C-alpha cells in the first residue's frame, strides 16, 4: 500500500487543572473552571451506594437516589420538576456500588439556581410515601422487563452464578425483586438520614463558572450541611472457581448471549494499567482479537468484547458476545481459544503499540464535554486516586510493555476457572453444548 499521510505537529493537550476545597462540614469541593464553555456540569457524590446498604435492604440505595428527584419539603414532585426544567435543568440522581451521584448540566447563567435546588433536594427531600410506592413499583416492573431482554437477563444471571452465596455482588446493585418488594419509605428515610451526609461527600463542578462566586454559592447552600455517615461495608468477593456451563433457557431465542468470565480486579489493584491495556487488546476496541476473530473473520456476531469492572472490591472480568443460535458452541470454542492464546503467547509488538497508541491518542477526545471532565474526577474522589492521576495517565499507559501484558494475562485471564453462561434456546443448543464438552452443563429456567 502507499504510505499513509504524515501527521502534522501534535497540538499539546493537558487534562484541565482543578482546585480542591474542603468545607468545614467535611464536603470536598472540586472546581474545574473552563473559560470557553457555555455549560457547567455539577456532580454531587455521596457514600450512599449499594455498598452502604444493609443486605436485608438491598436496593434501598438505588430507590432512595431516585426518590430524591420527586420533590423537597417546599416543592412537591410536580413543582420540583417544573422549577428545574424551566431553567433547562434535568436533575439526575442514581447510585452504583460505590457511590450515589446527584447532578445536572446547565447553562452557566443557571448555576446558582441549580446548585440551590440541588442542595435543597439533598438536604430536605420530600420522601413522599406515594412517590416511593410508585418508584418501587416501577423498579419491580423494570426487573420484569429486564428478564425478557436477553442481554440484561444474561448479565444478571452471570453475576448470580459467579459470586458465592451471601456476596452482595451476586445481584444487581439496584436489588432483587424479593429485596425491593420488602422496602418501605421508612427504609428510604433512614438511609437518607445516615448516608446523605457531607462527610466523605464530594461536589464537582466543571465548565462555565467563576470559582470565587461558585464557591460562595456552595458555602451558602451547603456550608452548614451537617451529619456523619455510617460508611460502607467491606465486600468480600468470593466466587466459585470451577469451570462450568450454565445454560439459561430462553425458548424462541434466535441468538445466544454469551458471558464468559470469573473474578476480576478491584480499583486499587497495582496491575490496573497493564490490565486495562490487556483487556483493550483482547476485547476493548474494534480491532481487538475477540472482535476480529468472532466478527470480522467468522461473522458469528455483531460484536465481541471483554472488560474488567473494578470496584472497591473485585468485580467480574467478562467476555461477551451475542451469536446466532446455530454457532453457539463454535463461538464459545473460539472465544475460549482467544483467552488461552493471550495467556500462552506474548502479544505482538505491533498490536500492542496500536492499542497503547489508541489509549494515549484518544485521551483528549474523552474530555470534550463538561460532563466528561466532571465524570473523570469521580474515581479520584470515590477511590482516592492521586490528584495527578490524569496528568500521568498517558505515561502509565506508555510504560506497559509486552512482558507486562503477558504477565497480567496469565494472572487475570483464567479460562480454566471460567463460568460460561449462555442465554438461549435450550432445545436448539443443549445438545451441541453437551457434545462440545467445554465443562459440566447445567440448564436452568429463565427467572
Amino acid at each position: 500500500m502507499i504510505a499513509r499521510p504524515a501527521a502534522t505537529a501534535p497540538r499539546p493537550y493537558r487534562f484541565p487543572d482543578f482546585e480542591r476545597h474542603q468545607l468545614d462540614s467535611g464536603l470536598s469541593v472540586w472546581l474545574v473552571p473552563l473559560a470557553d464553555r457555555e455549560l457547567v456540569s455539577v456532580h454531587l457524590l455521596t457514600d450512599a451506594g449499594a455498598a452502604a446498604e444493609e443486605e436485608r435492604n438491598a436496593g434501598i440505595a438505588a430507590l432512595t437516589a431516585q426518590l430524591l428527584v420527586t420533590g423537597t419539603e417546599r416543592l412537591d414532585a410536580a413543582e420540583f420538576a417544573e422549577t428545574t426544567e424551566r431553567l433547562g435543568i434535568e436533575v439526575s440522581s442514581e447510585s452504583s456500588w460505590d457511590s450515589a451521584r446527584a447532578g445536572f448540566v446547565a447553562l452557566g447563567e443557571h448555576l446558582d439556581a441549580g446548585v440551590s435546588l440541588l442542595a435543597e433536594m439533598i438536604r430536605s427531600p420530600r420522601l413522599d410515601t406515594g412517590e416511593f410506592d410508585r418508584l418501587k413499583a416501577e423498579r419491580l416492573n423494570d426487573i420484569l422487563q429486564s428478564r425478557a431482554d436477553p442481554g440484561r437477563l444474561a448479565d444478571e444471571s452471570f453475576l448470580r452464578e459467579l459470586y458465592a452465596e451471601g456476596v452482595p455482588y451476586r445481584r444487581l446493585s439496584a436489588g432483587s425483586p424479593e429485596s425491593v418488594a420488602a422496602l418501605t419509605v421508612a427504609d428510604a428515610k433512614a438511609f437518607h438520614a445516615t448516608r446523605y451526609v457531607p462527610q466523605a461527600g464530594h461536589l464537582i463542578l466543571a465548565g462555565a463558572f467563576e470559582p470565587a462566586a461558585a464557591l460562595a454559592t456552595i458555602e451558602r447552600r451547603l456550608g452548614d450541611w451537617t451529619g456523619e455517615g455510617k460508611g460502607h461495608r467491606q465486600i468480600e468477593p468470593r466466587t466459585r472457581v470451577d469451570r462450568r456451563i450454565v445454560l439459561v433457557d430462553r425458548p424462541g431465542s434466535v441468538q445466544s448471549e454469551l458471558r464468559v468470565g470469573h473474578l476480576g480486579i478491584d480499583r486499587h489493584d497495582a496491575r490496573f494499567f497493564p490490565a486495562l491495556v490487556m483487556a483493550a487488546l483482547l476485547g476493548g476496541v474494534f480491532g481487538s482479537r475477540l472482535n476480529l476473530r468472532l466478527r470480522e473473520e467468522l461473522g458469528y456476531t455483531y460484536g465481541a468484547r471483554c472488560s474488567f469492572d473494578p470496584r472497591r472490591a473485585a468485580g467480574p472480568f467478562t467476555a461477551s458476545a451475542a451469536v446466532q443460535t446455530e454457532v453457539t458452541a463454535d463461538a464459545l470454542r473460539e472465544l475460549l481459544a482467544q483467552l488461552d492464546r493471550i495467556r500462552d503467547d506474548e502479544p505482538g509488538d505491533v498490536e500492542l503499540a496500536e492499542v497503547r497508541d489508541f489509549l494515549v491518542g484518544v485521551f483528549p477526545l474523552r474530555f470534550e464535554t463538561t460532563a466528561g471532565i466532571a465524570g473523570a474526577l469521580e474515581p479520584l474522589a470515590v477511590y482516592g486516586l492521586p490528584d495527578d492521576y490524569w496528568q500521568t495517565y498517558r505515561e502509565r499507559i506508555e510504560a506497559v510493555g509486552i512482558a507486562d501484558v503477558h504477565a497480567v494475562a496469565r494472572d487475570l485471564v483464567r479460562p480454566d476457572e471460567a463460568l460460561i453462561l449462555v442465554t438461549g434456546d435450550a432445545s436448539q443448543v443443549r445438545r451441541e453444548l453437551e457434545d462440545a464438552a467445554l465443562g459440566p452443563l447445567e440448564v436452568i429456567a429463565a427467572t
Partner: protein
Amino acid sequence: MPDVPIERHTLDNGLRVILSRDPSAPIVAVNLWYDVGSKHEKLGKTGFAHLFEHMMFQGTATVDKGQHFSLIQAAGGTLNATTWLDRTNYFETMPAHELELALWLEADRMANLLPAMTQEKLDNQRDVVKNERRWSVDNQPYGSWDEKMQALVYPDGHPYHHSTIGSMEDLSAASLDDVREFFATYYAPNNAVLTVAGGFETDAALRMIERHFGPIPRNATLPGPPDMTVEASIGRQLRETVPDQVPLPRIYLAHRAPVFGSDAFDALDVAADVLGSGRASWLYAGLIREQRLAQDASAFVFPITGGASMFVLWVTARPGVSVETLEKALIAEIDRLASDGPSEGDLNRVRNLRAAQTAGMLERIGERADRLSMYGCLFDAPELINSEVSRYRAIGPDRVRDAMRASIHDRNRLTLTYVPAEAAS
C-alpha cells in the same frame, strides 16, 4: 449562544465542503454524508444500503481489510458510520494533527473500493449484519416496532415502507454485482457533503481536501431522488396487535406528519417535547406520576424528508392496567394538546430544555460536524445549525395547536399494540 462558524466550498467534481474552525480545539472531526439511504433501495434489496456501509470498512485497492480501523485507532481516533432512511454517514474524530489520515482514508474508499471487493468479504459482512438484525430486532422485546410501523404507515412500494435493517431474505440475495452497481451509482463526490470541524488551519485543510478528493471523478449520471409522493394523511385508523415475548403491553401510535424542514414539523417537534420531554411533561406527569397507568412514555418526530415524516408516541402499561385504559388516557393527553395548545409555561420549559440540550450537543465536535453535514446534505443550508434554537423559540402555542389539529388525529393514526404472547393465545 455564539454561532458555529461556517465556510463553504465546492470542488470541481461537485463535492460540497463545509469547514467549521475552532482554533483552540486539540481534536478535529471529519464527517461525510452521502445522499443515499434505504429509501434508494430497489424492490427485493431491502437492507442493502446498510450492508453496503459495512463493505466500506472492508479495505480498498490501497488499504487492506482491517487497516481502515487500525490506522484510525492507532492514531488515537474514533470512527463509525450509520445508515438511515435518507442518508448514510461516515465519521472520524481525530487528534488535530491526524486530520489528513482521516481525509485520505475517506477519499480512498470513495475512489478505490471496488478492486478489493470479494465474495468472501461480502459473505462475512452479510453474516455480521444478519446478527445485527437478530440482536436489535428479532431477539429483542418490542424489537420489530419500527419495521412494522413503517410498513403500515407508508403504502406498499413507498420508499419508507421498509426499515433500514432490511429483511433476512433480501440480505441473503445481495450480490457482488449489487455492490458494484450501488457504489458506481451513489458513491461519488457530487453525491456527498464533507464537513471538517475543530482544530485545523483553513488553507492547509483545503489543500488536503483538494489533494485527496479532487481527483475523484463525478458521476455524470447521478439518478434523481426516488418518488416519495404520499398522501399527507393515512386517511383512516389502522390497528395491529403483535403478540411478543414481553411481560408488559406497549402501545405505539404513529401518524404521518409534515416533512423535516417544514414549519409544521418544527411545531410538532415542540409538541413532542411538551408531551414527552422531562418529568414535567404531560405524559410523565399525567400517565406515569398521577394516574400511574404507564411504566414509561415517549414522544418524538422522525427527521425525514420524503413525502411525509412520522409523529410517534409510545407508552408501556403497568401490570394490571388494560391497554384500552392506557390508550384512552394517552389519547386524552394528545387531544388536549390539539384542542387547547400548550401554555406559555409549557413552552418556556421545553425551550430552555432544548437550549441546554443543543448546547450539550454542540460541545461535541463530532456532533457539530454531523449536524452541519446533515443540513448541508438534506437542505443545502448548513447555516440552519445556527438558527435551531431561535426557530424553536419562535414557535408559539397557536402553531403547536394548529400542527397537532392538522395531523395528529384518529383518521391519521396507526395503533400498534404489543401484548404478552401467552395472554394473546
